[in-house]
């Protein structure tokens, strides 16, 4: 990390839903105002604003930070826009953290959003370009072969994906902000849902959501002040980014090197040598259920080929040794640009003890994880209840 310790002192998010009836600014603003309120701050307390979202085509507004400057109280301040595909919510939070860690600013507001209902995810994600090899099957069709490769390599049985989806959707029932609240969901209802991109079933895929997430980050003095006021901060113990080429000969898309390196880097910064034991809770970017066992291995929580056994043994349940996605995760809410920041924010909520019904008692150290593109962009942070 840098010169200054970084504390997360305010977190806010919208209720994620298929259509939010506010304006684009209204959606972003709602999360930002909640984060400010949580931090006990007003707009004038903020030094700089960092905003992230996925492609501008989703809302049909080019460089929307320009239009959103007023809504985020950024007039007269630095305003910064990040876009790193699906990992963007995570990389946006890291830019905000860097602005504090470097000593440049004291209090930074960071926001990420997507208002997918303005257009349609399937459209914006699969614009067919001339001369490109035809995309025969959309995002699920891109990832399904990699999942099949994982199953072949590890010998994982078909029901693992169902278990993950069931767990995340049940966890979502404890999160009032989650998009999907499927009260009657069962193993069989997931199993019987339509097989879209074999082996991916309908209930094993993420929804398309409108939503936003925001955080207020401060330096050590700000974190200490929050603690003194009885609002426990989360402390940033490490941040890391990694990217690798989208397509190259011999690329391992099941266990990408970029993810391994990113995890190794962030754990080293946080002084973590045995992640399974030392991390109390994980918010992991899992848009298709099978990515949970794949990322368990990629991040070093499980030996190669064993991730699915952790799922089967209940390790990642809220009652397990390593609870994963207590919020319901991306499988229950997916405002794309915000999804990565939600992982980072939910990790911080856990170590602040403010996760409500989906709180893991005594969580002291948490990992927030985001990835994007064809699993080639990674962003992660480790946050803790204790000052690093």
């Amino acid at each position, binding site marked *: 990390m840098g010169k200054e310790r970084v504390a997360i002192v305010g977190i806010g998010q919208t209720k994620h839903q298929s259509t939010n009836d506010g304006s684009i600014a209204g959606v972003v603003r709602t999360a930002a105002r909640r984060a400010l309120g949580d931090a006990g701050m007003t707009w004038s307390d903020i030094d700089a604003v960092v905003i992230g979202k996925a492609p501008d085509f989703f809302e049909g507004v080019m460089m929307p930070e320009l239009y959103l400057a007023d809504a985020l109280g950024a007039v007269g301040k630095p305003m910064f826009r*990040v876009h790193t*595909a699906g990992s963007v919510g995570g990389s946006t939070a890291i830019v905000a953290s860097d602005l504090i860690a470097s000593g440049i600013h004291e209090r930074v507001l960071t926001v990420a959003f997507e208002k997918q209902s303005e257009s349609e995810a399937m459209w914006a994600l699969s614009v067919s370009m001339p001369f490109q090899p035809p995309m025969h099957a959309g995002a699920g069709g891109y990832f399904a072969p990699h999942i099949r490769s994982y199953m072949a390599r590890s010998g994982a049985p078909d029901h693992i994906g169902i278990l993950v989806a069931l767990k995340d959707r049940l966890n979502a029932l404890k999160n009032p902000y989650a998009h999907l609240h499927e009260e009657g969901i069962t193993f069989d209802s997931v199993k019987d849902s339509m097989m879209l991109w074999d082996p991916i079933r309908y209930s094993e895929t993420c929804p398309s959501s409108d939503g936003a997430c925001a955080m207020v980050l401060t330096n050590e003095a700000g974190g200490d002040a929050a603690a003194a006021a009885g609002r426990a901060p989360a402390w940033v113990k490490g941040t890391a980014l990694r990217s690798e080429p989208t397509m190259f000969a011999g690329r391992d898309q099941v266990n990408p090197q970029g993810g391994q390196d990113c995890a190794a880097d962030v754990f080293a910064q946080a002084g973590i040598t045995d992640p399974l034991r030392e991390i109390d809770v994980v918010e992991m970017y899992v848009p298709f259920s099978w990515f949970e066992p794949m990322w368990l291995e990629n991040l070093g929580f499980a030996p190669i080929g064993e991730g699915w056994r952790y799922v089967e043994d209940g390790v990642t349940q809220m009652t397990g040794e390593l609870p994963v996605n207590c919020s319901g995760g991306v499988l229950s809410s997916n405002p794309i640009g915000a999804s990565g920041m939600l992982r980072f924010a939910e990790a911080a909520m856990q170590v602040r003890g403010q996760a409500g019904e989906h709180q893991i008692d005594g969580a002291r150290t948490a990992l927030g994880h985001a990835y994007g*593109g064809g699993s080639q962009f990674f962003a992660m942070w480790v946050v803790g209840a204790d000052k690093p």
Partner: protein
Amino acid sequence: MRDVAVVSFAQTHHAREVSDINEVEMLMPLMGEALAGSGIPKDRIDFVCSASSDYLAGQPFSFVMSLDAFGPWPPISESHVDMDGAWALYEAWVKMQMGKTDVALIYAYGKSSPGDIRRVLSRQMDPYTVGPLWLDPVSMAALQARVGLEAGTFTVEQMAEVVARNRRAGATNPYAQLGGEVDPAALLAEPEFVAPLRKHDCPPITDGAAVVVIAAGDAARELSDRPAWIRGIDHRIEAHALGLRDLTRSVSTEQAAARAGVADGPVDLAELHAPFSHQELIIGDALGLADGVDVNPSGGPLCANPIMTAGLIRIGEAATRISRGGGDRAVAHATSGPCLQQNLVCVLEGE
């Protein structure tokens, strides 16, 4: 702040249309020039940050494949902004302030030729009350120019002088798209384009790209004989709606200039990302530049204006002049958004 300097800069030969190559093919030679050409091993790069816009390419996630031009293997620490490359440089500079990043590569690219750039940029506006009108950036600049002209902030003669000076400078810049000797009086005899602007008051439509390498402390001294040190850098934004701003001023440039310390010493040269002639006068005022400052010795955006890139090029041009001994203290400026909504100011110095 940690000392960080620009140590290498490469740019394309800017042109109206570079349609026979894609973005990777455009960027890859520049990466080679900025690294190998300056004797910088690729494995010295700790961080890469890029800038581009999907709306220029007409393709979502258009930046994803452009990273191939660098060859990010083994995996690298990397980020991307949907802003001008000057802001990508800012993100890299911030990383360096944290202490562990010593050398960073920044690249930016923009091809305006695939679409109708005026219509494309109209998508930047508030999507409810302005976007549906398809109000374009040339028209907005023209509205701004008339405000300044009628308020007496500047004159058409001054605007023509700006154009003539930039074109003259552009003739000396092998990378510029436009350049040559023009008579200001002859310029004023040209017909109006979007009145009160004439065509020459507007930037050319440009395809282009640029790469900048920055390095901290000893690494900078090792990689460059005369690094151009970033002594101050800051950026600020204003309200979005034109009706909420005083269009004759650039308040955000004034704010960024104060933070970056422009007034802390004499300025030898300035590279201003003022796409329209009258905007150079507005930005010059906002920076408080004295008479005699060499403004846009490269010819500036009036001679080549690759969108998402032209601001980064200003930093590269200013730094190159410092490194070659063409000045001791320079100001580089970048802008984004309608009528100078957002501005970045960077102060560069030699040793």
